[in-house]
């Protein structure tokens, strides 16, 4: 594989950029693979990469209905963080933060990793207490957390609405300085390019229509490009999980809901951090192009539409303007939606299933992007070793049966309000 560097860039510039190799091939599916990963999103690509890199399993195919970068990996708001209270989540996402740090070097692809800090605003004394508790839990797990007072927040983010006479005054914030953003397309492309170079077949425009299960063991899949056999199959299809599970006669503790995001017209640098509103669902950061990147609530009812509804967007942006009044002067450049696999306790599932050779990776709610590397890393381990890794042992499918839920927000099973 061609190495990307400043020298290769200069060399190719002199040749008119005609000699660049394709980043990944467009293979015809083989009759059989050791492992098939369904879903060529961030998690699927990362899984294939770590299967090849960490476990030396290279006879792997990624089967993708659309195209690389077209699903949620290209639709999120690019936020990285591990500011969780529960041990299972904290340890898992913190491993992810380690992988993010070295990702550009590992993948030889600039993912524009930017640990600019994430600031969760608090708007009451009770919320400050809750954030102090969460911050302390994070620190016990070795995660960086700083509780900020109102004046400290004002120094860091002066553009927030600090007037006295507002419905939700800013009392302070919980900050994770190592949180931040990364360029999501680059993550998908970087993993795809490395996985391809290690022998993984990335098969795009190939939709799965059925499964071949014999005596409780998975044997292969039926796709729009023919039947493909495999010893092991991993599902990494986010919002489409319930559709594939239905083909396998499995009912899961997840529902598919729609989440919107949007960007404003580009402006000069004004917001240095990722900031979240504490009295509702709104978060905002500024991209390197200068756009304000914003997101918030789910649309609020089961949806596979991949496009949003305006009442929700209006509601989210009302919160945005309450937090950052200058947003009201900006024009909206783009809005879009992605479909989320909302689990019943708000935490993901990475586990084996009752079908031999079938592995499940789902339930990411709307926190999937930051988990991309660690989800792939632990899922690859689960598939390769046929057992869960310590880091994902809490994300079991049967926790809903045994009562070992990881309900970070304490919201229960109302997926559409979480």
């Amino acid at each position, binding site marked *: 594989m061609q190495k990307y560097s400043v020298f290769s860039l200069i060399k190719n510039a002199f040749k008119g950029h005609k000699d660049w190799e394709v980043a990944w091939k467009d293979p015809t599916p083989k009759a059989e693979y050791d492992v098939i990963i369904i879903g060529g999103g961030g998690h699927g690509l990362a899984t294939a990469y770590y299967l090849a890199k960490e476990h030396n399993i290279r006879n792997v195919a990624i089967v993708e209905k659309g195209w690389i970068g077209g699903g949620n990996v290209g639709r999120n708001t690019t936020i990285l963080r591990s500011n969780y209270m529960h041990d299972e989540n904290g340890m898992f996402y913190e491993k992810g933060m380690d992988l993010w740090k070295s990702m550009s070097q590992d993948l030889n692809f600039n993912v524009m990793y930017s640990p600019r800090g994430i600031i969760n605003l608090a708007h009451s004394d009770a919320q400050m207490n809750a954030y102090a508790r969460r911050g302390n839990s994070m620190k016990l797990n070795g995660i960086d957390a700083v509780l900020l007072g109102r004046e400290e927040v004002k120094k860091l983010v002066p553009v927030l609405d600090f007037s006295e006479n507002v419905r939700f005054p800013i009392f302070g914030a919980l900050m994770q300085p190592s949180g931040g953003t990364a360029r999501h397309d680059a993550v998908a492309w970087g993993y795809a390019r490395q996985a391809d170079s290690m022998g993984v077949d990335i098969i795009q425009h190939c939709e799965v229509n059925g499964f071949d299960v014999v005596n409780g063991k998975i044997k292969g899949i039926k796709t729009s490009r023919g039947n493909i056999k495999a010893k092991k199959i991993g599902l990494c299809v986010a919002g*489409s999980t*319930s*559709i594939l599970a*239905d083909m396998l006669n499995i*009912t*899961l*503790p*997840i*529902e*598919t809901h729609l989440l919107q995001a949007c960007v404003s017209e580009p402006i000069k640098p004004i917001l240095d951090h990722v900031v979240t509103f504490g009295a509702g669902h709104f978060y905002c950061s500024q991209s390197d192009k200068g756009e304000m990147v914003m997101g918030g609530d789910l649309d*609020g*009812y*089961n*949806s*596979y*539409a991949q496009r949003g*509804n*305006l*009442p929700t967007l209006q509601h989210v942006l009302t919160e945005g303007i309450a937090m950052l009044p200058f947003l009201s002067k900006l024009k909206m450049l783009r809005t879009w939606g992605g479909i989320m696999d909302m689990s*019943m306790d708000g935490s993901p599932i990475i586990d084996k299933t009752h079908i031999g050779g079938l592995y499940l990776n789902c339930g990411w709610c709307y926190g999937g992007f930051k988990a991309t590397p660690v989800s792939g890393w632990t899922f690859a381990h689960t598939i390769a070793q046929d057992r869960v890794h310590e880091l994902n042992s809490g994300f079991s499918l049967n926790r*809903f*049966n045994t009562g070992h839920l990881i309900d970070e927000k304490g919201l229960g*099973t*109302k*997926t*559409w309000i979480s």
Partner: protein
Amino acid sequence: MLHIKCPHCGLRSQNEFSYGGDGTVKRPELNKEVPDKEWDTFVYLRKSPRGKHIELWHHISGCRQWIKVERDTATHEIFKTSKANEDI
């Protein structure tokens, strides 16, 4: 904006309603020994179909009645609505 026909009030816009989830889920019978598996199914497991979905909505800023709605989860087309205690 969805337009939902409340069986009590007529056609109203979506923001008068709040969502109540899958309307086909049945609570296990009262005063009966219920195995854990049945509770698990009732509390957590959902079909979450792509296509027709029967769901509950609460006309919270209107007549405050719960209603059933049959809606397509991919196109948002609403086929039928009924009172919550009626079969749709």
